[in-house]
């Protein structure tokens, strides 16, 4: 594997390998010395053109725990804010001899473009409304752990149903999750108001439903998407209150979930909008597990890309 640009780049064996290795990586968190020497002497640059806390910091921790040198460059306060093009920025950073570029960009396809300009490994840390493959991997890691907890040694996604609820149109998390969960054999149901379903969704390997309540009793995992207020200027729904009534994971819906089902949310949450405080803090909420998984999964991915010979 040279780059990680899309969840579609990974087949089932590769995903399983990354998740298995992430399980080993997760043990590092409990050790007296939280450091493995595998990427000693390698340099990883986090190049972030969009704000991010958890993705950037978990990539940074992941790189550091593998002994790589990690440098963060954000658009604010860099030459990007002086009008430098993406290409010049990427070539400049690559010219310094870095081994991997972790790119978050507001334009869909930016990491893919970058991967064609430079020799370094490129990891997509979220591009526009396109993809966020490491988020899908950490979601799969969290879900797999949950499945194993509920039924011992049951880690297969076959026959499991994941409902992804919210703004599908603008969600790179949804796109990567659809691809990855489909590869793993899970059934995916997308739940959204018609205004937040992208055109061409008929060709996706999913079921689509506009009635959240119909799906609740069936889903093993309910994955809530953030209402992206910054992208919500187009009149996609009448009022936040109406969105909550139709598509929020409210207390009554929490009670109506299938027994043993769990809740995911990629964060940051809008409490009271797409998810109620009761649901966010429920015993079957995996939201903090997802954050913890972020570091382990990104360590695994960095090792897969940078751990061997060039």
């Amino acid at each position, binding site marked *: 594997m040279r780059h990680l640009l899309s969840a579609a780049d990974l087949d089932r064996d590769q995903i399983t*390998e990354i998740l298995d*290795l992430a399980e*080993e990586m997760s*043990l590092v968190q409990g*050790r*007296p*010395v939280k*450091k*493995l*020497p*595998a990427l000693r002497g390698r340099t990883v640059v986090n190049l972030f053109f969009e704000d991010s806390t958890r993705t950037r910091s978990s990539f940074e921790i992941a790189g550091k725990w*593998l002994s790589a040198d990690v440098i963060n460059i954000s658009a604010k306060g860099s030459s990007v804010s002086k009008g430098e093009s993406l290409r010049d920025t990427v070539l400049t950073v690559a010219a310094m001899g870095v081994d991997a570029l972790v790119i978050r960009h507001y334009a869909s396809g930016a990491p893919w473009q970058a991967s064609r300009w430079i020799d370094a490994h490129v990891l997509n840390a979220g591009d526009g409304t396109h993809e966020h493959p490491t988020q899908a991997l950490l979601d799969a890691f969290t879900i797999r752990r949950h499945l194993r907890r509920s039924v011992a040694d049951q880690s297969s996604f076959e026959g499991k149903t994941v409902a992804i609820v919210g703004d599908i149109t603008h969600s790179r998390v949804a796109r990567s999750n659809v691809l990855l969960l489909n590869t793993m054999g899970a059934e995916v149901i997308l739940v959204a108001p018609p205004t937040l379903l992208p055109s061409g969704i008929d060709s996706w390997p999913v079921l689509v439903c506009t009635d959240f309540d119909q799906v609740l009793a069936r889903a093993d995992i309910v994955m809530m998407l953030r209402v992206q207020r910054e992208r919500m200027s187009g009149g996609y729904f009448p009022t936040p209150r109406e969105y909550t009534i139709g598509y929020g994971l409210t207390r009554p819906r929490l009670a109506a979930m299938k027994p043993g089902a769990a809740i995911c949310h990629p964060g940051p949450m809008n409490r009271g909008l797409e998810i109620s405080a009761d649901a966010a803090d429920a015993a079957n909420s995996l939201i903090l597990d997802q954050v913890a998984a972020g570091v382990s999964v990104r360590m695994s991915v960095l*090792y*897969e*890309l940078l*751990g*061997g*010979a*060039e």
Partner: protein
Amino acid sequence: MSAGSTQSRVVMDADQIARACARMAHQILEANQGAHDLVLLGIPTRGVPLAHRLATVMDQVEGVRVPVGALDVTMYRDDLRRQPTRAVGRTDLPVEVEGRTVVLVDDVLYSGRTVRAALDALGDLGRPRAVRLAVLVDRGHRELPVHADHVGSYVPTRPGEHVSVRLAELDGINRVTIEPGNGPERGEA
């Protein structure tokens, strides 16, 4: 050249392996003056079943269960950059190593590089009181100043040859053979 260099030859059969394990288990207990504070850590892949075998013998001899675990050293190897990304094995510590006597268990001792990696890996997990090394086969050709405390069998080899250890737990058969190599392969074991 002798015939032995062109075809594989058996250097330990099932009985010899069993006797070697029994002897090593006794030696470890003798050197440690009992099973007190011992922990056996096998180096994956074949060090792990060997460590369990030693513990089974110790159980029969002293009537105590010595904790057995696994110590994966992949990410501590000095040859990571020389080949495609290596699969990482399990590390499983049954107890804290802090203050204990750790016996590292591996199938073959060759260059000593695996043991060096294991010592580094162990250092990140705690500070054992002492670290010992038990190997089923010492085939010579060390590249680092490493010495085994307990050896099942000393097997003279040529540098290019390959020592193949097969254990019933993983391979369905107990046998150690020397396979003719395609040339010097260094940096392993």
